[in-house]
């Protein structure tokens, strides 16, 4: 596709519910990143893939957060047993290997009630 596509754009989850957020990166982009952004703050790194390999997951806040990219293209960020502090915008970004220019999707807005 022309840009990074994320779905759903908005998600309201009840506390304790599991959610899955999808990211379609730009075609041909090897690197894929997930970020969490609280209102008015800069994005915080969660995890990074190169193709299907998850090279860095140091930013995942707890073991309730899980990300995968099984075929090296589409990625899913899963949050189990959601809690109110998980409410945030989840941004996905992709880039070509060797390039530090990353392109962002519009984000998935998660509200846990």
């Amino acid at each position, binding site marked *: 596709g022309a840009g990074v596509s994320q779905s759903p754009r908005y998600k309201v989850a009840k506390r304790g519910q599991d959610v899955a957020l999808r990211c379609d990166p730009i075609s041909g982009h090897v690197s894929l990143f997930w970020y969490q952004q609280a209102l008015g703050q800069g994005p915080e790194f969660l995890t990074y893939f*190169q193709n299907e390999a998850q090279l*860095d997951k140091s930013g995942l806040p707890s073991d309730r957060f899980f990300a995968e990219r099984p075929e090296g293209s589409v990625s899913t960020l899963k949050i189990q047993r959601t809690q109110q502090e998980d409410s945030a915008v989840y941004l996905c970004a992709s880039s070509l290997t060797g390039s530090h220019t990353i392109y*962002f999707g519009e984000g998935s807005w998660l509200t846990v009630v």
Partner: protein
Amino acid sequence: TQLLEQSPQFLSIQEGENLTVYCNSSSVFSSLQWYRQEPGEGPVLLVTVVTGGEVKKLKRLTFQFGDARKDSSLHITAAQPGDTGLYLCTKTSYDKVIFGPGTSLSVIP
């Protein structure tokens, strides 16, 4: 550990005024990017600077990279309401892009 600092955190100015925002790090940047994020959107890349002392201009925006490559500034001339947004600087650390906390700019018509 806060790898990047940005100042000011918030800035509200009148249309037509000039402004400068800053990005600082305790360590050297191999490269630095500035992004702008509008409400409800993802960040959009404005510029990449690589060389110490480098100055880049993008219409009314002037970006400067410090000689020691530890700091950068973004100057906006004659700000317009369309400049409103969150301005983010980033650095790359071990293949992951780290963002600063951002400067939230509001330009009042």
